């Protein structure tokens, strides 16, 4: 709980057990949220397919460094991207992976920088960003995480605060 750095295998676990799993379990709820741009109710399904592809790359990856794990995840997401949401997700993590390029371990500050880099990469790939989408959520999360990081350097508390700020 007082851990200062995230290792490659921890990041892999965050992606697999945390992110991918909860997305899979909540795919129906996200489907129900889908009203834009085309209200087809398939966002959850699309994101689930995309992140599953990302997760399977992570499983195969070298987990000795965070950079390798993040790159594998970004690659898997890119290859398996489905729908608008999947493409956006892949861009968020492409930027995230670029933001921690070459790093073996991750402290809170570089985590926040990588998060921010993910958001700006994702925003660059669209001509007319429409607010109120997942992009806005990502942007606000990154901004909020940055504020929290200024005073909280312990991971457990950092993530707990970041995840409950909405």
């Amino acid at each position, binding site marked *: 709980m007082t851990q200062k750095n995230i290792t490659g295998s921890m990041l892999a676990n965050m992606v697999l057990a945390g992110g991918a799993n909860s997305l899979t379990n909540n795919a129906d709820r996200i489907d129900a949220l889908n009203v834009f*741009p085309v209200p087809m109710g398939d966002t959850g399904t699309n994101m689930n397919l995309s992140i599953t592809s990302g997760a399977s790359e992570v499983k195969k990856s070298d987990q000795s460094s965070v950079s390798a794990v993040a790159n594998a995840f970004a690659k898997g997401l890119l290859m398996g*991207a489905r*729908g608008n949401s999947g493409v956006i997700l892949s*861009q968020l993590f492409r930027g995230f992976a670029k933001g921690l390029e070459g790093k073996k371990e991750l402290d809170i500050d570089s985590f926040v920088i990588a998060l921010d880099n993910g958001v700006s990469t994702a925003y660059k*790939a*669209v*001509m007319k960003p429409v607010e109120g989408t997942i992009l806005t959520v990502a942007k606000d999360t990154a901004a909020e995480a940055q504020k929290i990081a200024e005073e909280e350097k312990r991971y457990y508390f950092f993530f707990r605060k970041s995840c409950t700020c909405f």
Partner: protein
Amino acid sequence: MSIELKKDDGIVTITNEVIATIAGGAAIECYGIVGMASKNQLRDGIAEILRKENFAKGVVVRQEEEHVHIDMYIIVSYGTKISEVAHNVQSQVKYNLEKTLGLKIRSINIYIQGVRVIQD
């Protein structure tokens, strides 16, 4: 060129310009699109991004018998899954045209005229 819709109370005529503007407007809201390109692009091999008033240069509307077909010329962002972006454009343009004009589209053909690498 224009498209005529026969309604019970008369005929509604929609010019191709209108369809092009709506289709283009819907397309540029799609994630992964950098812009619309001209159909007759390529001055020195560089696809130019069209401004909103010129969208018709990058959208071709064809009517064959009762069916409407659309060709769209777009520029996408590097590092995205381009096949998926193209597919998103198709479904979004189709949805928007049906919603705003009540126009059934038979096919939307996407031509990727360029891919833009964004420095970071």
